């Protein structure tokens, strides 16, 4: 009966192991949901939004964002910009420290920026700072990393030199990829390769796939302002799981709300459900390099007008999204998006005009347009595509074939522009500036999905880029968007919203278009 003992030992061991790990819900710990595991907590290697959320808590850049999303001083206490907009000089705080007490200096920022463009590090975001002097050459391997136009004048002074003006540079510097890199050898065995931190929190432990524990960084220069001692990020891939955890009182903040439960959640939680405009646009793009859409503006406009956007946001997405008539979302800093010309018309009138344009383009009941609509495999995308398919069929008689593809395959197809006709796309702003959206449609942009190429548009954007007067720049940008919208290069459909459940005990939460919510700005009200 040795077997029996063995089996008993197994049962006992497994049960013991099962009992071990209960999270403690104590008064000063904030529990946040996180949709995926950060792929890395190395600021220069990280890529996902989720990694950026955590990095904003455990690291700090030159600038940060206030609870309502405005630019504020962070590790840099002040900065100056030269008259031509090419040289930025930052003054780093004297009291800025790493979590081990060592001083944070300009050298660390130089090291961070150099790592970002270093081919050996292979950072995903390298291209975002390619306007810094020599950055392009370094990325291509043609220049040494120390040739980068970012230098430490002294311990507390950082100078960044640009090849051409980048009016949104300060916004870029709030992105984790530009955060400082610790240059000493310091690893406290917390799971990340290098867990030195200069933010309000430090990483205490990281169990991949389940939990990141953050604790207060007592060496942070503004530690007095930090209210919450511990922040737990619970990695919960399925949004339903997050909802269930919130329901059972185990999460203070969810990072999404499942679409299937949205109505129910709204009734159940009322004010705790926070839905706010988000800096992202959902669109259907045309492949402008091949027939039938190449050079056929009337057809593109007809398809755009025949889509009832109100119906889509009310009945299909149904989570407070707003119908889109522009490419750049409203709420973008220093920008007032122009709208598609027909936005004021009723849907019936739009449909009439759409039918006329459709016939003008050479199609009709006897000669219906037959196209493929590609989207990535997902129930939500499919629902949406089916609705659009029905609208095009009812109003114009278009025969649409739906093609669901794996996301990676879809992206490859879009990029190759060989088989795509209409495709699903979305764009989320990296920083709060119209450039992040408009730059995408420039002919030489690598992310230009439609193949839109209009010399006038390009030159307007270039003129805007060279412009240091913000008001004049805004006018150039708006003019460019107006032009692109009139060309109907794609169909803006709706603007995203951010959706969270936020427990009543959480104080200091403010909705903002970038949907960044630093834990250091929050506090917990024990009375709730």
């Amino acid at each position, binding site marked *: 009966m*040795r077997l029996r003992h063995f*089996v008993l030992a*197994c*049962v006992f061991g*497994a*049960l013991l*192991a*099962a*009992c071990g*790990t*209960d*999270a403690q*819900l104590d008064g000063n710990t904030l529990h946040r949901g996180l949709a995926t*595991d950060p*792929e*890395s*907590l*190395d600021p220069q*290697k*990280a*890529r996902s939004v989720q990694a950026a959320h955590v990095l904003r808590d455990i690291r700090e850049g030159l600038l940060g964002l206030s609870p309502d999303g405005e630019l504020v001083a962070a590790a840099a206490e002040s900065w100056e910009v030269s008259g031509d907009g090419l040289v930025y000089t930052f003054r780093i705080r004297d009291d800025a420290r790493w979590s081990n007490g060592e001083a944070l200096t300009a050298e660390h920022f130089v090291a961070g920026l150099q790592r970002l463009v270093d*081919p*050996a*590090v*292979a*950072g*995903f975001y*390298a*291209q975002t700072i*390619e306007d810094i002097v020599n950055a*392009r050459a370094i*990325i291509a*391997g043609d220049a040494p990393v120390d040739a980068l136009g970012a230098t430490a004048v002294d311990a507390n002074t950082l100078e960044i030199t640009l090849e051409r003006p980048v009016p949104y540079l300060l916004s870029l510097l709030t992105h984790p990829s530009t955060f400082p890199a610790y240059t000493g050898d310091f690893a406290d065995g917390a*799971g*990340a390769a290098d867990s030195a931190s200069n933010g309000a929190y430090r990483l205490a432990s990281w169990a*991949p796939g*389940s*939990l990141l524990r953050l604790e207060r960084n007592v060496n942070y220069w503004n530690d007095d302002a930090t209210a919450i001692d511990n922040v737990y990020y*619970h990695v*919960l*891939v*399925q949004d339903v*799981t997050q909802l*269930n*955890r919130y329901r*059972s009182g*185990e999460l203070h903040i969810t990072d999404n709300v499942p679409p299937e439960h949205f109505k129910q959640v709204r009734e159940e939680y009322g004010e705790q459900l926070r839905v706010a405009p988000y800096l992202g646009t959902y669109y259907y793009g045309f492949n402008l390099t091949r027939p039938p859409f190449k050079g056929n503006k009337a057809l593109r406009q007809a398809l755009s007008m025949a889509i009832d956007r109100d119906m889509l946001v009310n009945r299909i997405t149904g989570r407070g999204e707003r119908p889109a008539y522009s490419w750049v979302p409203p709420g973008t800093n220093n920008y007032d998006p122009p709208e598609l010309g027909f936005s004021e018309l009723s849907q019936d009138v739009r449909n009439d005009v759409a039918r006329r344009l459709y016939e003008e383009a050479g199609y009709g009941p006897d000669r219906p347009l037959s196209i493929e609509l590609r989207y990535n495999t997902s129930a939500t995308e499919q629902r949406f595509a089916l609705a659009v398919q029905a609208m095009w069929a009812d109003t114009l008689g278009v025969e649409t074939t739906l093609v669901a593809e*794996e*996301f*990676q*395959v879809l*992206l*490859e197809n879009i*990029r190759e522009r060989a088989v795509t006709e209409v495709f699903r*796309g*979305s764009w989320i702003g*990296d920083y709060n500036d119209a450039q992040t959206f408009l730059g995408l449609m420039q002919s030489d942009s*690598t*992310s230009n*999905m439609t193949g839109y190429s209009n010399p006038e548009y390009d030159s307007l954007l270039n003129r805007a880029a060279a412009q240091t007067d913000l008001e004049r720049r805004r006018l150039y940008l708006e003019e460019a968007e107006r032009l692109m919208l009139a060309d109907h290069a794609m169909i803006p459909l709706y603007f995203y919203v951010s959706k969270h459940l936020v427990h009543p005990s959480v104080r200091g939460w403010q909705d903002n278009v970038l949907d960044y919510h630093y834990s250091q700005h929050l506090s917990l009200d024990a009375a709730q």
Partner: protein
Amino acid sequence: MARYVLARLFSAIPTLFLVVLLSFMLVHAAPGGPFDEERVLTDAVRQNIERYYKLDEPLPTQFVSYLGGVLQGDFGPSYRYRDYTVSELIAGRFPVSMQIGALAILIGIAVGVGIGTVAALRQDTLLDRVVMGVAMTGISVPVFVFAPILVLAFAVKLHWLPAGWSGAHGVSRMLLPVLSLALPQIAYIARLTRASMIDVLKSGYIRTARAQGLGTYAIIRYHALKPAMLPVVSYLGPAIAGVLTGSVVVEQIFGIPGLGSTFVTGALNRDYTLVLGVVIFYAALIIALNLLVDVLYGVIDPRVRLR
């Protein structure tokens, strides 16, 4: 015995090589790279990343260096989780899957053998028919139908148990996933036990024992159980494979950070090295556990000589 084990281990080498080769070719044939996103990388940045992961080398070279790494237990860096190697990811997530899987199998054996024995003793009574009918249903209801129904009943409607893998419920969070995985095993083992127990009870030595006036309990406990367990032991191999497969679904449904769900997301993300690593790991695991089951069989049944 030692020679037998060595020979078995040796014969596993070509199998494993085949597994490595096939899955390596498959993942590299997959359309779309691991680094594609809507934010398209500039060519220079893309090249740097591919060089970083040595994806710019010819495939045979990549395969040879990969194989070399595997032989030393190094499955390479994960493409998606840049701070982790594949070995670290497997080491971090497999224990969760193993905990649930091992519990499910143990419960399956304990409950299944019990039910099967009772049904065999009451052969052809109403009890027997009902138990075997339930067992047949247990085999027939797929885990991905059964598990959501459990969630619906016990978590959503009754609020007795947590619906997901929640950090605050140490034991209770395991109940539904383990039950979902264990049910088909209970059913299968109960059927096996019943059939073999009926055979054993008919055999001469049991009749002798009974004639000597031994009680039913003693007969089962000291004479019948061990021989009746033999088919159950040889079923353990398939049972393990079944539980591993089932854990993919159960981990999805309950949001459990185990190896099965990691594999599915890895495949969708084109995390080549992670997917490869998991397949090889599972293949090695199944081979090792099958060997263990065979050795166990030899221990229980002295008639079997392992050569």
